[in-house]
Each structure stands twice: as C-alpha cells, then as structure tokens.
C-alpha cells in the first residue's frame, strides 16, 4: 500500500481506494476525503449582514463543500498533477490535435493586468489596447488565409464550425436560397463536422474517399444539386493528405450555388505556405489552441476564430472591431444581416493574447518554417516506420503534418491498435490518435508537430519499431496487459457507463459527519 495518509485522514468522508504506484507517485484521495466544511485556505473578514435585501431567499441547504488550507491544497493539486502526461514531459503525437510546444512568454503576456484584469463591458475608451490587439490578430489571420473578414469570438473549433455554417445559412437565406438543406461531408471528416451540420438542421450527405484517401471532384459534382447548401471539407484532410482537387471542388461548389466550409483543424501543415482563400474557401475556423499554441489545459479553453470570404463577411456575428478615423469601435449590436451573437462578451481574449504573442514571436517566416518542419517531421516518422508499419495511402506520396497507419501490420499477432497504444504508454510515450479517421481499419494517426527534435523523433521511432517487432514475435501479452507502468492500469469504461457515478458520495457504511 502506498496510499497517501499524510495530513488529516478524516473529513466529510474517507478514502476507499486500494493503491498501486511508487512512493514518489502516491495515490491521492479525493478533495472530499481530505477536506471538510470548516477548513479554508482563504482568509476573509467576517461581515455582518441582515435579511433586508434577501427577500427570504437565504440559503438553508448545506453547501457541503470541502475546504483545504493553502499547504493542503498545494499538495493535493501537485500530487494530482503528477498523474498526468503533458507536452512538457514528453511527445504527444495525437493526430489532428496539434500538440505543439506552448511558449511561456504567451502565459506571461496573457497575465498582464492590461489584458487579464479588464472587463468586457468597460467603456471602449478604456480598452483601446484590447481592441487594437483584436484588430492585429484579425490582420494576421486574414493575411495568413487571404480572406476578407474574421469572426474572432467562437469559443472552440466546434463553435467556430457552427458560426461559419450559420453564416452560410444566413447568406443562403439572404439570397432567397433558404430551402437548401443538404450539407456534403466526406466520410473522413472530423466527427464535429456532421455534428455541426445536423445541429443546424441540415441533412448530412456523405461523400466517400477515393482509393488514394482524398475526395474526387467528380464525386462532389455528382452529389451537388439545388438543395445543397455547403460542403464541409478538411484540408489537409484527416488522412494527412492535401486534397489535390480542392480548387476544382471549390469551383464546382460555387457554380452549384453552394458554399465551401473548410475545417481548419489541420492548418498547421500549411500556414505561411498555402492561403486557404486562394483555394476558394468561404469559411474556415482556426483552432488557436492547436495551430497557434494556446495550451490545451486538459481539455480547453480553446478558441476557434472563423475566417470568412467576401461573400460571407456581411453575415459575421457581433461583436467585432471597426476601424475608422479616431478611436477603434466595438460593434456590439447586429446591423441588418448579421447573424446575431454566439457568445456573451468578446470571445476568448486570453487566447487572442497568447496566439498573437506566438505569431509575433514566429513572424511570417517562422510560421512557414514551423509548417514545413511539421510536415518534415511527419514524413520522417512515416519513412522510418514504413514498411514495418502499414501506411495505407503511401502511394499518394508525401503526407502533410500527420502520418496515417492502419493495423494491417498487426494481423495475426493478437494485438489490436488499442493494445499497441497502451503499450506505448509503458514506454513513456503518449499514444497517437487511434481508430480515426474511420476510413482506415484500426487507424493510427501520428502528428509529431514541429516542436519535436530529431533526437526525440528517433527515440519515438525506435520504440515504435521495437514494439512492432515484439508484436510480430508473438509477445501479445505485453500488449494486452498494458499499461502496467502508468498510475493506473486499463480502466473499466463499461462499468463507468453502465453504473454512472458522476460525483463523490459519502461512503454508506461511515457516518457523514464532518470532524
């Protein structure tokens, strides 16, 4: 047993978990098992209040919130943190996630009081620097994409997709084409694409990929018709390939009276090298938390600004910054056609600051170099791992920023893609994206990003090759039992879903009383 029993073992409950792990990585009880309702890590004066303005709504239900003093809190959250993998501790080759280095300058700048301690509803005369920052970020995004406008406010990629598709719908309605109710989505698309289209009430029509892993203009043309509102296409696509017929596809889409939504999740491969506006796209969201290095934070916050073509620019939601003579203005109310508001306030300012800091650090030259290095790294991994690993679309030539493999090389070994991924954990690497895209059997999608050195890539490839050899040598048990060296072994996800336990409950066999 290496259960941490330091500190107060009492509290609103009592820990029940058995433990594994090393003495430097102890299990950590829940906050509710170590804290109680009396302890607090914040000193506050006691205020005298009466009920004059409370209209009889004073709280009677106990809060039952566990509190910790400052030293206890630090230990709890530091210990918990050490049970996480992170980019700073190792390579994070998750395909389509762009887990690149998060520069600390960005964090420092985002915490300047002039950015962090300003309110979204301050008089605009007191936040001219913030509006200038938004304007400058917009300039970078429009320049990198050669587009006419950008809506900064979406809170994440899926929110950006929703906003872009809403702009498309608004534009169709304005043209008297509101009846168009079909959105074309290739079957290699991110799950968020069909989800967004369906969310807005569109019928999703799937377009199959061709044998080379890309979309044929002919297949798109065949699917286009008077009821098609838009196509949602990811480029570079989720197989890690640049869509070679994309310009023809855009042309055909426009000729049919539809719009071209591009999923920009993979923009990292082409920033500074290809401008999506030159391809004919009408809307594209950009994940600032992927391409422009704002930290993933264990699942957000993200930011998903969406760039718009001249055709869609008049429909952008509020708010946006308007430049004129004199001070910058913040347009907060929708004139005419604008589609309204998609979030309170001004979007993810904290992410704008980090992204612009990243852009200024790289410059236009550095961004292009980063894209080229990201593509080089993916191709290097692909070259080193093939033919030990099966690369389904190798015939297509170089990949973009991510290398796709399938599970053919594991055939007959008794090892699945999942097993293989879990074995990587035991070797100190975070797994790649698995079982996505869906068009490939047992997919393994590796995106090293530009942040990895040749030395790290070599270590990664050596490990992957050794694991593949081991699988082929018949050592399946090593894979099916993995991981054994992580803070936890494989978790029972079926049980979690069948008997959902979504919050801490006091143990039934123990008294609930706080100490």
């Amino acid at each position, binding site marked *: 047993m290496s259960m941490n029993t330091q500190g107060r073992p009492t509290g609103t409950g009592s820990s*029940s978990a*058995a433990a594994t792990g090393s003495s430097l990585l102890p299990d950590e009880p829940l*906050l509710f098992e170590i*804290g109680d309702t009396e*302890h*607090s890590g*914040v000193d506050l004066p006691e*205020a005298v209040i009466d009920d004059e*303005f*409370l209209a009889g709504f004073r*709280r*009677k*239900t106990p809060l039952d*919130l*566990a*509190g910790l003093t400052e030293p206890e*809190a630090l230990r*709890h*959250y530091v210990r918990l943190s050490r049970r*996480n993998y992170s*980019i700073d501790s190792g390579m994070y080759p998750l395909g389509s*996630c762009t887990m690149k280095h998060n*520069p600390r300058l960005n964090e420092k*700048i985002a915490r300047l009081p*002039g*950015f962090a301690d*300003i*309110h*979204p509803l301050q008089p605009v*005369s007191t936040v*001219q620097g913030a509006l200038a*920052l938004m304007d400058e970020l917009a300039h970078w995004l429009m*320049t990198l994409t050669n587009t006419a406008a950008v809506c900064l406010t979406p*809170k*994440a990629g*899926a*929110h950006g997709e929703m906003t872009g598709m809403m702009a498309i719908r608004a534009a169709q309605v304005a043209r008297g084409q509101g009846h168009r109710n079909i959105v074309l989505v290739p079957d290699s698309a991110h799950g*968020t694409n*069909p989800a967004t289209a369906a969310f807005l009430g569109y019928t999703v029509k799937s377009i199959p990929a061709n044998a080379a892993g890309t979309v044929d203009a002919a297949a798109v043309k065949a699917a286009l018709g008077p009821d098609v509102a838009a196509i949602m296409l990811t480029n570079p696509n989720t197989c890690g390939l640049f869509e*070679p017929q994309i310009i023809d596809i855009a042309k055909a889409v426009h000729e049919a009276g539809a719009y071209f939504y591009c999923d920009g999740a993979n923009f990292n491969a082409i920033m500074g*090298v290809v401008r999506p506006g030159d391809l004919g796209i009408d809307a594209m969201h950009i994940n600032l938390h992927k391409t422009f290095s704002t930290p993933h934070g264990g699942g*957000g*916050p993200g930011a998903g600004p969406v760039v718009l073509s001249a055709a869609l620019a008049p429909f952008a939601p509020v708010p946006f910054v308007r430049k004129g003579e004199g001070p910058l203005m913040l347009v*907060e109310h929708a004139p005419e056609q604008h589609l*309204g508001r*998609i979030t309170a*306030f001004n979007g993810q300012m904290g992410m704008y600051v980090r992204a612009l800091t990243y852009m*200024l*650090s*790289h*410059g236009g030259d550095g961004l292009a170099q980063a894209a080229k290095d990201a593509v080089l790294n993916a191709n290097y991994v692909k*070259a080193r791992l093939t033919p030990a690993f099966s690369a389904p679309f190798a015939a297509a030539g*170089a990949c973009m920023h991510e290398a796709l493999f399938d599970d053919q090389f594991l055939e007959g070994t008794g090892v699945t893609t999942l097993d293989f991924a*879990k074995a990587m954990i035991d070797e100190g690497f*975070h797994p790649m994206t698995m079982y996505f895209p869906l068009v490939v059997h047992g997919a393994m999608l590796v995106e090293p990003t530009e942040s990895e050195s*040749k030395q790290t890539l070599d270590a990664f490839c050596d490990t992957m090759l050794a694991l593949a050899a081991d699988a082929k040598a018949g050592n399946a048990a090593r894979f099916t039992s993995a991981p054994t060296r*992580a803070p*936890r072994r494989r978790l029972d996800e079926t049980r979690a879903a069948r008997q*959902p336990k979504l*919050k801490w409950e006091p143990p039934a066999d123990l008294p609930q009383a706080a100490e």
Partner: protein
Amino acid sequence: MRYLPHSPAERADMLAVVGAASADDLFAAVPAAARLRGRLDLPDHAPEFTVEAHMRALAGRNHAAADGPFFIGAGAYRHHVPATVDHLIQRSEWLTAYTPYQPEVSQGTLQMLFEFQTQVAHLTGMEVANASMYDGSTATAEAVLMAKRLTRKDKVVLSGGLHPHYRDVVRTYLDNAPSLVCQPPSPEGQGDILSQIDDDTAAIVIQTPDFFGHLRDVEKAAEAIHIKGGLLIVVVTEVISLGLLEAPGALGADIVVCEGQSIGNALNFGGPYVGLMATRKEFIRQMPGRLCGETVDADGNRGFVLTLSTREQHIRREKATSNICTNSGLCALAFSIHMGLLGEAGLTRLARLNHARAVALAKALRTIPGVTLLNKSFFNEMTIRLPVPAAPIVELLARAEVLAGVPVSRLIPNDPSVANLLVLAATELTTDEDIDLLAASLTEALA
C-alpha cells in the same frame, strides 16, 4: 527561431531519410495554383523582449480594473483570486495536457473533473453536473436545447431578467424560432413569465440574481412550469451568490447553468470563462458536454474516465446532443482549486462579504440626489435610475478613472425606457473609499 529544434544539417539529414530533395518537395501534392508565391506581408520572427515590448504597449492602453474604483458587473465580476490558483494552473502537467482520452495517464485531470462535478452539484443543489461548458451564455443556449429534447415540446420563454447577451445567444442558437418568447426587459423586477406557460412550453428560463440584480422566486416558477409538464432552467451569472442564497436545486430547478468566472478566473475581457451545468440524474443522457465517472482499473483500483461519450459529437457525429467538444478544462481547474481553498466556510464568508459591500453601495447611492434605487432585493448588484441618460455619465466618470457600472443601453440599445438605467456591482474588493469616490463623482456629474 527559438521554438524550432532542427538545425539546417538535421533538416538535410531528415530529408535524405524521407527521400526528398527539399522541404518544398514535400508539398508536391499541393497544386501549383494553390501555392503561395512570394512573401506574406507580415513581420519576421522576433526576440522575446521585442514581442514583450509590443504587447506591453497594447496592454498599457487599457485601464485595468484594479487601477481605480470599479463597479462593473453584468455577468462578469472582479474578485480576488488566491495566488495559489494561478500558480497551480501553470504547472506543466495541468497546462499542457490534452483532453483525458487516455485515462491511464490522465488521472490527475480526471480526478479533478470528478471533484469539480461534485462541487458544482453541491453548489447548485442538483444531482449531477458536467465537466464544464464554454461559458454561461452558451450553456444557457445548450440548456434550452436540452429541455426541448427532453420534453419534445417547442415553446421556450426567456425572462426579462435574463442577461441580454444570453438572450441573444439563445436566439442565435434557435435561429430566431417563433416558438422562442423573449419577455421585455424587467428592470423593476416585474414581468409575468408564469402567464406565458402553456401545454406546449418546453422550458422557462429565469436568472437569479437577475440582470438587474433582483432575486427571483425560483420555487414559484418551478411550480408553475411543472404543472404544465415543462422544465425550469435557472441561470446564475454570479456564482458566489450561491454561498448565501438558496440552491436552485432545492427550489425545484430542473437544469441549472452558471457562469463560473467569479471563482478562480480573471476578467480577461470576456473570456476564457467556465460554464457550469447541473441537472437531475434522470436527464444525464440528454446533457451536453463531457462527463467524468468513477470506475476501477484492471487491478480493481479506483480510477476515473470520461464516460457516456456516446452523447458527444466526436463519437456520435450527426447524432450528437450538442455543439461542444473542447471546453473549459483549465478554467474548471481554476474554479475547482479556488472552491477547494474556500470550502463551505470560505464561500459562505465570501458571499456574506459581497452582500455587505453591496448593501454599503446601495445605501450610498440612495443618498445621491436624483438617483433612484430600483431593487428591493439584491445580492451584490443593483440597478439605479438616473435623471439623465446613463451612458454619457459613465463615460464622464471613466475619464476621472471611476468605472461606474454598465449603462443598460449598452446591452439594450434603442429603448428609451432603459436609457437612464445603470447597473452596478460591488464585491469583496470594493472599499469604502471606492464607494465614497463613486458617490462624490456621481453627485458632481448629476449636479
């Protein structure tokens, strides 16, 4: 370039392994017409100190909340965040981790989310909470959609006390559907939402404390909507109020959504923030957002995983229940740490302190000639009527470095009935000197 590890020699070595003559060769699949020719009109890379100087200059052109008396609220609040919170969330293992899809190496994030869900459930008085939403406004829109799915009814009524931005976001999410009824603004706490309820009503949405600061009767609303088979959505934009006011769950709310910014998160000019959503256990399969659940590993040890993800769009594609994927993990962490530091004792003290400061503010405002306080009830925010339009007065005071609140006309333009209204908030950071300065400058401006 300090962020790119390869030397030119290493790039050449790697290209040789790949079998390409140059990096440009790797882009051979890109049609020639699609390739950028020439240079982008953007500056070249720059050292840290150059970038920092540029950004500091921009930041320097903003008036920070701490720079003077500050009374702005209206959905985002200036509170003190303990130094421990910001220190902890900058630890690499929190800051630079991905969404915990590989639970064996993400137990830190997962256990934190489980604790967060527990905190939110206790705070709101609900049975279950999710692992966070983007913010309060989008969470409100998602709650409305959830209620429509659950009831299979169409009509939704928004209270006139709902934050106008939240109202606008719901409108946008519902594409201005005619079945969405938005009551007119209710600055006096008036408005009869209950008479709008009929058999086709999926949900009513009330906010408490509302946009104008009034405390609303959740229990009465719950009774009225439940009789007709609809759901009550309660919105809380100042989450610290729950330390003093009754939990909406104890009063009959079916879905509670909050803006969680007040706990752990800076003002940030509007984002990133953290939306909270809590509901009844029977509704979890229609709840949007990620959920973390407890389970065991292969050795029988307690562990945590993301669960019920068959609701989510990255899995469910066109059958997903919401438009949310990446959400507010790090902001939820900040919330959870700050709430863990407060505990019940601290949150209660903090809420009482906020209310006490607001009472002091209200009493000072009432003494100013020409000013009428509209609230009979409030937590830490209130609305006053001025004898003249509020926006120019706020601008005037801003020039004297007193940020006096939010003119209602900023959010509800072109409505003469609200032009003279000003919404002001006080928090634990509001001092007697701040209130004196505000009262003096407001008196002078109105004289």
